[in-house]
């Protein structure tokens, strides 16, 4: 961070000012003039937190995608289908057993096994053939989408969280001051906060595993030079399968999270595939911190867009992508 500040003093200054403004917006009681200009603080805070939690969900989906791409150069356009499969599996697990928490390991396992099959049956046969992988995974996603429509029907499912997680909690953030001097505190759904914290924990654990463990070292070495890694005697195919299983499992977990946040339905697969594409393009292919940054940006853009410019909310996300591509084609955190 200090290195960044030394290298780009102007940018560091701008970012510091922006953060200060943001903190003031979050903690201060808004004066009336500001309220007239951009609306009530409650709306702003809700958009902010919804954006951050949506970013957490996007991070869960996109980190698996970017991990798989970064290590194996596998282009898995069926990633959205893995997400949707996880959502359906999670919904039915929670529905049958009645335990919401059980949905996560089951979805992780089922989707991870599916991912292993994909890696062994498809990707290993066409290593290095980008276009063919893309086409085959597009075909797989078409087939999977129709099979899931067949098996699970076209209805919207909503995974309901357990009672101890449902309902809003009162946070310590002040949204307004009543005329009698009482402070009004922001209420926010508990489940969103828990899920966001879980996403952060997953991100931190992933970062630690990549940077502090032996397997992480092997994966990072594989990202840099696959051939040299296998020449040193590492069982690279097993590492590949493990990473693919983990990335796919993350997509499955994200499906359960998405089903709790929003809903599980046909068409969500393409939506989340696109979201993860945009996130990794913005953040930089194959970079986990990049995926986190991109997910946060895209989640915030989507939520603020839908609150403040409702007609062009989706276009705003793509605008971010276009600007990043035009000035930094490798992504914000990507390396050349």
């Amino acid at each position, binding site marked *: 961070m200090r290195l960044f500040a030394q290298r780009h003093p102007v940018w560091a200054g701008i970012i510091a000012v922006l953060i200060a403004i943001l903190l003031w917006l979050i903690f201060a009681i808004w004066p009336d003039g500001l309220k007239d200009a951009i609306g009530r603080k409650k709306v702003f805070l809700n958009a902010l937190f919804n954006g951050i939690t949506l970013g957490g969900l996007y991070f869960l989906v996109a980190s698996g995608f970017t991990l798989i791409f970064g290590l194996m150069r596998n*282009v898995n356009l069926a990633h959205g289908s893995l997400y949707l499969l996880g959502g359906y599996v999670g919904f039915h697990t929670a529905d049958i057993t009645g335990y919401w928490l059980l949905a996560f390991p089951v979805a992780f396992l089922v989707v991870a096994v599916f991912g292993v099959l994909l890696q062994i049956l498809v990707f290993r046969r066409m290593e290095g053939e980008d276009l063919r992988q893309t*086409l085959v995974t597009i075909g797989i996603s078409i087939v999977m989408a129709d099979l899931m429509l067949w098996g699970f029907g076209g209805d919207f499912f909503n995974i309901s969280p357990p009672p101890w997680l449902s309902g809003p909690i009162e946070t310590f953030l002040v949204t307004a001051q009543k005329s009698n001097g009482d402070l009004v505190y922001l209420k926010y759904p508990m489940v969103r906060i828990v899920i966001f914290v879980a996403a952060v924990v997953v991100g931190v654990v992933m970062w630690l595993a990549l940077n502090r463990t032996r397997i992480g070292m092997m994966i990072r070495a594989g990202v840099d030079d696959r051939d040299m890694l296998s020449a040193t005697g590492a069982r690279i195919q097993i590492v590949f399968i493990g990473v693919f299983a983990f990335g796919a499992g993350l997509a499955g977990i994200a499906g359960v999270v998405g089903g709790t946040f929003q809903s599980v339905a046909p068409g969500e697969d393409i939506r989340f595939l696109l979201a993860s594409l*945009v996130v990794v393009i913005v953040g930089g*292919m194959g970079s986990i911190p990049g995926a986190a940054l991109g997910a946060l940006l895209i989640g915030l853009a989507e939520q603020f867009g839908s609150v403040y410019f409702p*007609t*062009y909310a989706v276009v705003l996300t793509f605008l971010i992508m*276009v600007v990043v*591509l035009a000035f930094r084609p490798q992504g914000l955190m990507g390396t050349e």
Partner: protein
Amino acid sequence: MSDHVETPTPAERNHLRLGSWIDRVPPGYWVLGVILLVIPAFVSDFVMFQIMGWTFILGLIALSLMFLGGYGGMVSLAQMAFAGFAGYMVAIFGNSAITTISQDWPWWIVIPLALLLTVLFATAVGWLAVRTEGIYTIMITLAIAAAFFYFTRQNYDLFNGFQGFNSVLPPHIFGVDWRGPEAFYYLTLFWAVLGYCAVLYVSRAPFGLALQGVRDNPRRMAALGYNVTAHRVAAYSFAAIIAGIGGILLTWQSSQISPGTVGINAAIDILVIAVVGGLRHPIGPFIGAFIYVLLKTFATDVLVALGLSGDRFQLVIGLGFLIIVFFSPDGILGLWEKLRSSQNRDPLTGQDRPRGPL
């Protein structure tokens, strides 16, 4: 006693050149051309308008993808967005049932303007997309196609949102109703043949050859002094003309354009068509489109006849696509070439037989 050499008069020479040009057209083209020209005498209006017309239109849009992918090495999923953009422009500047938006300008302004705007749009997209390579191009063009889809769905001032435009009809030129089955058949056939010939011509012209050089080795082409980026962007512009023509015809055929026309599924369908047909030769997209249209029209009936639910149509398309890309990355053209080369091989020596004079 005279060593007078007979020199052909200019008229004869012209005739000779024309004759040799005609000789060079492969016989297959003659057969196909005659069949395509006389088909309307034998088939029903439905086949002409719905099957053949749709085949030529989808073939044109897929042809623009084939040009970019096959000769330029850039697989773009935004071609359907370009086609839809041209269709939208025709609806906005031309006539439609949404009279509050449609300008109702004459066709000879509307159509060139629509194509021009499409080319500008595609050039901008191309400029963005060529900053990336290979797999990134697919992702970025997919994202752009999705952005265009969402934009048309949410913008009501210009694109009329979810509804889109209906009653977008072709103009009555020369007193012909161009949406009549026969007239529409010949209209689409004309543009399909023109697009096919244009792509074939450009692929052998200096620009096309340079583009193929850029595809194979951009660094070497740059060292030779070619502007790699400019060639790639120009390829997008050229492909957009073809896609735009296809899009205008598509809008006229269904007489409407809406966000569903330019959706992500439609973009992927174009890719499926181009890949199933084959990205090596401009005939591929038309073969792919023909198969796709046949499947889309009759697969439901066949599925029902086999005792399955007709809803599983998408599954059939997906599985067929999977099988083809799994076993033959070059599509049906690739299968055909494999078959021919295996027939041409001597079973004893395993080497190619010398080709006899045909």
